[in-house]
């Protein structure tokens, strides 16, 4: 283990090539994983380029509200006669952008706190982990609801920021336990013995070996963030400043009465399907990553 990771410079390029070949093999073994990757990439494309296909103000039509599914409007229209598919596509940007911000904050905060905690141990570790525990115990959704009274999350970046600040606990825990286990195997001492600096040990040796754990926990955090923000908008405690899947759900259920009449059902189902599809994609990708990075499964 340690030899493989320590000899980094010369073999790095071959290792990288082998890695990508391994990724490809794992992907091919279960085609569903390829589907997962395609779904996730598709959503990314939709978030970045999707809104460009539509005008800033979607055309509405007061004579054609809550239209049923048809060739023209695949998922019907909303309460203002706007096309639901267009709403889902333009709404994806807010959802995905804030998820991206959450992901970055989660990874940066979680990794640095976890590394610091596992590396220093002792008093700092205890204090930080108590804090993490406490954050993990405070009920997340009620806290978000209460916070919504003072913070209106006007932009996707703000929303992502808050969710990231609340969500780094899981990654921190995972990184810390990884650091501790590498430590226990004499890994850090060995690197020290070779005269490597702390920055080198952390940056070149520790981080690469736990990248998979970080990535996996990040994906889980992102999924949670998507659910949380869509849920917050759905509950209607935030002003509808942006077009967003949660706003769509809220309007469909509490405005269009999707729980009592069938007219607004397609309007409600479209964002639900988008969420389900995104979840499926992420689950499949996590499954693939699990196998790529799990040495036990990789060997044969």
């Amino acid at each position, binding site marked *: 283990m340690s030899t493989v990771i320590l000899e980094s410079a010369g073999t790095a390029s071959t290792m990288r090539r082998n890695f990508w070949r391994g990724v490809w093999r794992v992907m091919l073994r279960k085609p569903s994983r390829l589907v997962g990757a395609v779904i996730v990439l598709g959503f990314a494309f939709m978030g970045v380029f999707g809104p460009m296909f539509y005008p800033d103000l979607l055309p509405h039509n007061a004579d054609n509200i809550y239209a049923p599914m048809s060739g023209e409007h695949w998922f019907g229209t909303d309460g203002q006669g706007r096309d639901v598919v267009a709403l889902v596509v333009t709404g994806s940007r807010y959802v995905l952008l804030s998820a991206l911000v959450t992901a970055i904050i989660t990874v940066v905060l979680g990794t640095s706190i976890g590394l610091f905690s596992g590396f220093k141990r002792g008093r700092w570790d205890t204090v930080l982990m108590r804090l993490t525990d406490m954050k993990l*115990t405070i009920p997340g959704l009620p806290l978000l609801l209460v916070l919504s009274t003072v913070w209106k999350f006007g932009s996707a970046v703000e929303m992502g920021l808050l969710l990231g600040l609340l969500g780094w606990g899981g990654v921190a825990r995972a990184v810390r336990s990884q650091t501790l286990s590498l430590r226990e195997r004499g890994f850090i001492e060995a690197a020290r013995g070779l005269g490597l600096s702390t920055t080198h040990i952390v940056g070149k040796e520790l981080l690469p070996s736990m990248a998979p754990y970080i990535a996996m926990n990040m994906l889980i955090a992102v999924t949670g963030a998507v659910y949380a923000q869509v849920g917050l908008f759905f509950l209607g*405690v935030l002003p509808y400043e942006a077009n967003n899947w949660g706003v769509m759900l809220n309007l469909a259920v509490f405005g269009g009465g999707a*729980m009592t009449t*069938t007219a607004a059902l397609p309007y409600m189902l479209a964002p*639900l399907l988008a969420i389900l599809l995104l979840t499926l994609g992420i689950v499949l990708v996590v499954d693939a990553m699990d196998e790529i990075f799990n040495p036990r499964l990789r060997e044969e």
Partner: protein
Amino acid sequence: MTVIARRLAGHLARGIVMVLVVATISFFIIRNIPGDPIAARYQKLIEGGASPEAAERATAVMYGFLPKGTLWQQYLDYMSGLFHFDLGISVTNPGTPVTEVLAGAAKWTVLPVLFGTLLSFLVGVILGVYAAVKRTGKLGDVLAVSGSLLHGVPQYVLALLMGAIFTTLLPILPSDGTADILYEPGFNAGYIGSLVEHATLPVVTYALASYGGWILAMKSSVVTVLGDDFILAAELRGMKRSVIFRYIARNAILPLFTILALSLGLLFGGSIFIERIFNYPGLGFLLIDSITNRDYALMGGAFLLITVAIVVANILADLFYSVIDPRVRSTEEVS
């Protein structure tokens, strides 16, 4: 015994800190809400002709602290109110103390969630055993996949789908409150029947949403125990299958009881989406209502109650674990 006492003391101390932190968050949020509702209220009372003393008293009763004095003074007032179980007065329910409103809503949350949790625990655990035993077969695959999917999907997606199917498309189950208003609340068949009918969707949705977690947890627990040496040992000693099955079951379910105790902490706050979607007037519904109606004392109280439930469940889970696992009970040196 001393081990348990020490652990309990540690948990209690941490729990108290948690509650204090949450109360502090509530205080600062209420105080910093844009537009300062407390000062506005006070101002309104003065304008309405009340004496400054009367206005102060009325505001203090409502929010637990006065809009005057240093921040520290206000904070202390608020906290000391908490220690007397005085959470202020609800604005939306004029004259009713927050504690009373909370108690009224709590029963509509606790019973369905408790029922839903136990239902999903039971079904999830039994199917989890099957998923573990048949893990190489088709049935095991189907069970595991159904578990992962249900576990991965957020609660509100499930609730909305359930609602769409059972109240919109085939209107067989109601999703409007706790019972039809034409029945007189009381112990009569019509009312109770209506209660059950209205509780079905919330309970089943809650059970479905948590079932996936149980089946996955039980499966991995059983698989772990199956690999333990003592199971092979029992087999090589010629123990009966039924005996070995009991050994596996008891060892595998042990960690799940802890999760069960922890998940009971969600009794008060675990069904916000479900209550909102099915218009079920529990604590989650109340929390959202209090936010939309700017009833901040009620909001703070609901948030606090939800947190306290989690803290209490944490403590109970730990106590419970020390009772059922002999290893925790007697090892003194384990920290």
